[in-house]
């Protein structure tokens, strides 16, 4: 599998999935669901700041923020997800995207191919129907990042 188009961390995750058998991939997805960080307190009490990805079978909410990077590098995009414990598959994908994309620049995130979730090799094990919500999750992140990237910079405002 050619993962050269992916940011390094995400490419490593895809390689990890690819190296496993199908049941092991599901187990790894479950581990990612456990690894999804809790929302920071300032977002926990403000559900209105999160946006629902309606294409997911179970309620998934996400938002993005930016923070300055060191030494004049482009600002970093931070990702925040909320999904119930009863939805481990959705949480697992959120966990993959969080670990693979959190802290990257807008340009790096926008360069991730839309079909990246397919590269995890889970489509057969979790069915194309369930994969659709996962692809929608990446799509929503990219749309939100694109909207941020196109906003006027503070100097122009």
């Amino acid at each position, binding site marked *: 599998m050619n993962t050269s188009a992916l940011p390094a961390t995400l490419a490593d995750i895809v390689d990890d999935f690819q190296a496993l058998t199908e049941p092991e991939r599901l187990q790894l997805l*479950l581990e990612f669901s456990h690894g999804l960080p809790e929302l920071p307190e300032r977002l926990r009490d403000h559900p209105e700041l999160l946006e629902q990805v309606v294409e997911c079978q179970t309620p998934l909410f996400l938002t993005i923020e930016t923070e300055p990077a060191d030494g004049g590098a482009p600002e970093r995009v931070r990702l925040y997800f909320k999904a119930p414990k009863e*939805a481990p598959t*959705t949480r697992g994908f959120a966990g993959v995207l969080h670990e693979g994309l959190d802290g990257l620049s807008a340009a790096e995130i926008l360069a991730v191919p839309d079909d990246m979730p397919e590269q995890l090799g889970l489509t057969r094990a979790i069915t194309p129907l369930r994969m659709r919500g996962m692809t929608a999750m990446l799509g929503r992140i990219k749309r939100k990042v694109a909207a941020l990237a196109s906003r006027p910079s503070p100097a122009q405002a």
Partner: protein
Amino acid sequence: MPYPVEQNDKFAAYAHPGRLVSTEWLATEIEAGALDGGKLVVVESDEDVLLYETGHIPGAVKIDWHTDLNDEVERDYIDGLAFAALAEAKGISRDSTVVIYGDKSNWWAAYALWVFTLFGHEDVRLLDGGRDKWIAEGHALSTETTVPTPGTYPVVERNDAPIRAFKEDVLAHLGKPLIDVRSAEEYTGQRTHMPAYPEEGALRGGHIPTAASIPWARAAAGDGTYRNRGELEALYLGEAGLKPGDDVVAYCRIGERSSHTWFALKYLLGFDTVRNYDGSWTEWGNAVRVPIAKGAERGTVPAGY
């Protein structure tokens, strides 16, 4: 020799009390060692394919509605050979008593039970209240994947006709009672899929003319158990207008939610002829030249049908 049936007042009022077991009953039976030897097999069937792995009833096996029960290529269920292989791998024999439970008020569990019934598995029951009630009551959970002793299962071909309706059957059925179990928005045609669920692609919105709208979850109480007999009668005989002995077809979007209603009509109210139209709206809403009614009214069967 089937496993003994649970006796309690709520179940006794149903037409076929032996089709349900309570969480207390199951906990007691498991405690007494019922799962040793394969006479009683507990199956978890959920919407989320990984939920079983996060914790399940100790000794329960997992069957996924999509990856295990649906054919991978054709839009159909698995055949007798695949079902026998699945059952054996899950420790189920032809004479095993199977208790199925799952998330979301047993929505997917009822679907799995319906598929077991296509293969004529004799003793298959639902855990009233399902996974959520079991957990809410603090019963034991395990994250250990159950490795069952393989069962012995003959190759039995599916017998679809008694409980499964195809599109042609529904067209021939028009004029007789239909129950649409989808949300009000789907029934009226305002939307073609469940709120907050993926768009599964239906080109037209609305309902099959004359179908009564009784969203599936109305058959469930707050704790996910089935409503009692009187409440179910008020819903289906009163509101939907069914009469004892009616020939009924239930449908939803892909046949899952309507399995829950099918179970209530067939086993709790005792309608002999109830079929689940699993093609449901994802077929009807895409089919060429089938009648559709829009809006909250049931509509009438158009001339020529």
